[in-house]
């Protein structure tokens, strides 16, 4: 500890797991927005990533509550948030936003899009897989053109509703921080906006990487039109995100309220590596420059692939650093503005690095399982696309 802190402030309350949580929900929101680009805004070019984006969103959404459960002092009481939710509390209301998004948006949309394949696989498989698919059909085997058309229409509406739901999902997380007037590092109306756009950026970057990785693993050629379009949307979203973050920064520096000196010192000392180096230079300026280059200059296909993969990886690192800087940064300085503390993260501890790493790997393991159960590609998919008039 340096300087003076209120005696109870020296120990951090929210750990790396609470950094992980907005990171994971951000990836969900971002992946979903990418998927909705195709469905609602009819950006046909990104169709090859549609199902992959939905499954990615689901995999990460399923893991998202786990860091919270590991963090809670009494995880066995977590159901109380649904039983007696305090309506004034953003955290309580978020429980319902999460539930709504998981149940009414994501699962329904995936089910509707995959229903035909589920029915075909229920009829074509054996053993446990057959039972699983039969369960997923909910007992209805109607895949007539009429039924599929209704699925398509309803799916469209769900996606349409899903866009503001995804905005709400991650905007709310931003609000959980942004509404805390006690903490000047968090308290700003821009927080939900910044969180949302950085979420979209990280989600699009993730789906881009997953698409490239799965194509490479499957030995299938990458649809360059899809990749270029996805990268373009990543660039646009990033520009908006960067603008919002710069607006917050400039506003803080200009107004220089009572917290400014303390926060400024913190950024230049404790948060120098994670904020200046990792978030700003490595995670924002570099990928923006790389992506801008691909928009302004013509590069060969192979070069573009490398640029996109690098930019997307750096982006994801940068967005993780941003979550770290918000959550951990907000607890490193004293609310007396007279001192600082340090965050000692354990390794093999309930809220330690090992848990964080495991929770970051788990969604990919789940995604693998989901891909096996609900293949985004393959014959069934090709047939579906044919039926929809896409070659």
């Amino acid at each position, binding site marked *: 500890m340096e300087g003076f802190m209120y005696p109870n402030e020296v120990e951090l309350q929210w750990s790396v797991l609470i950094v992980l949580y907005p990171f994971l929900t951000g990836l969900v929101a971002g992946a979903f927005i990418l998927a909705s680009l195709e469905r609602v805004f009819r950006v046909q070019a990104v169709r090859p990533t549609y199902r992959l984006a939905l499954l990615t969103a689901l995999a990460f959404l399923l893991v998202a509550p786990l860091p919270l459960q590991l963090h809670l002092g009494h995880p066995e009481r977590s159901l109380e948030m649904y039983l007696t939710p*305090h309506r004034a509390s953003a955290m309580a209301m978020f429980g319902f936003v999460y539930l709504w998004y998981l*149940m009414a948006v994501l699962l*329904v949309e995936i089910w509707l899009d995959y229903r035909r394949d589920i029915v075909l696989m229920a009829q074509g498989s054996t053993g446990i897989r057959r039972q699983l698919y039969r369960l997923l059909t909910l007992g*209805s085997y*109607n895949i*007539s053109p009429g*039924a599929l058309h209704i699925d398509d229409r309803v799916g469209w509406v769900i996606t349409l509703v899903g866009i503001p739901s995804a905005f709400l999902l991650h905007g709310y997380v931003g609000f959980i921080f942004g509404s805390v007037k006690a903490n000047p590092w968090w308290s700003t109306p821009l927080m939900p906006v910044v969180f949302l756009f950085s979420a979209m950026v990280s989600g699009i970057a993730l789906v881009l990487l997953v698409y490239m990785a799965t194509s490479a693993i499957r030995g299938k050629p990458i649809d360059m039109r899809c990749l270029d379009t996805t990268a373009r949307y990543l660039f646009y979203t990033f520009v908006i995100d960067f603008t919002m973050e710069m607006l917050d920064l400039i506003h803080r520096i200009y107004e220089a309220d009572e917290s400014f000196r303390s926060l400024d010192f913190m950024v230049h000392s404790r948060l120098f590596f994670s904020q200046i180096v990792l978030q700003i230079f490595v995670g924002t300026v570099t990928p923006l420059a790389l992506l801008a280059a691909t928009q302004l200059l013509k590069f060969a296909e192979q070069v573009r692939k490398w640029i996109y993969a690098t930019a997307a990886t750096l982006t994801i690192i940068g967005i993780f650093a941003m979550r770290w800087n918000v959550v951990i940064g907000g607890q490193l300085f004293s609310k007396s503005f007279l001192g600082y503390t340090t965050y000692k993260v354990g390794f093999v501890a309930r809220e330690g690095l090992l848990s964080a790493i495991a929770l970051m790997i788990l969604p990919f393991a789940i995604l693998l399982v989901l891909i096996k159960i609900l293949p985004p590609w393959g014959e069934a998919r090709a047939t579906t696309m044919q039926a929809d008039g896409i070659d």
Partner: protein
Amino acid sequence: MDKFRDSAHLIRLAAVFMLGAMVFVALRTVVIPKSFGRYGFYRGDALQEITSRPVAYAGHDTCEGCHPDVLAVKSKGVHAHVNCESCHGPQARHADDPGSVKPSRPDVAKLCVRCHSENIAKPSGFPQVDPKEHAQSQACNACHQPHSPGFDGEGQK
């Protein structure tokens, strides 16, 4: 009719959701604590749980009830407004059972010094000394009677 048949699966989906909602509502009535909401948005029984905690400090009125002699001395001196347990520590258990629970004598060396050792942040009118210089390694109560520690012109008050 066709339209109905073609949306039958959606009705099944809706039924699954309805079932979930009903289970949730039923769960609520069983699991939410009965006293929740009795006084406000909290578990009413919590108030009783909190107030039923046993007290550790008896309060000076209780001490003075049994020790009027000490009170008589103290109320004439400069420690008149210093409550008994401020120096003697929590004595509720002693007050409840004076026969078997005996308070221990405060450690004068630490106790007096905490209040009276000079410190730049103490109000200037407050009696404060450099303990080593003032006491010359004698105990404080060698000269000062703790219940009425002051001195007037003719010696101890």
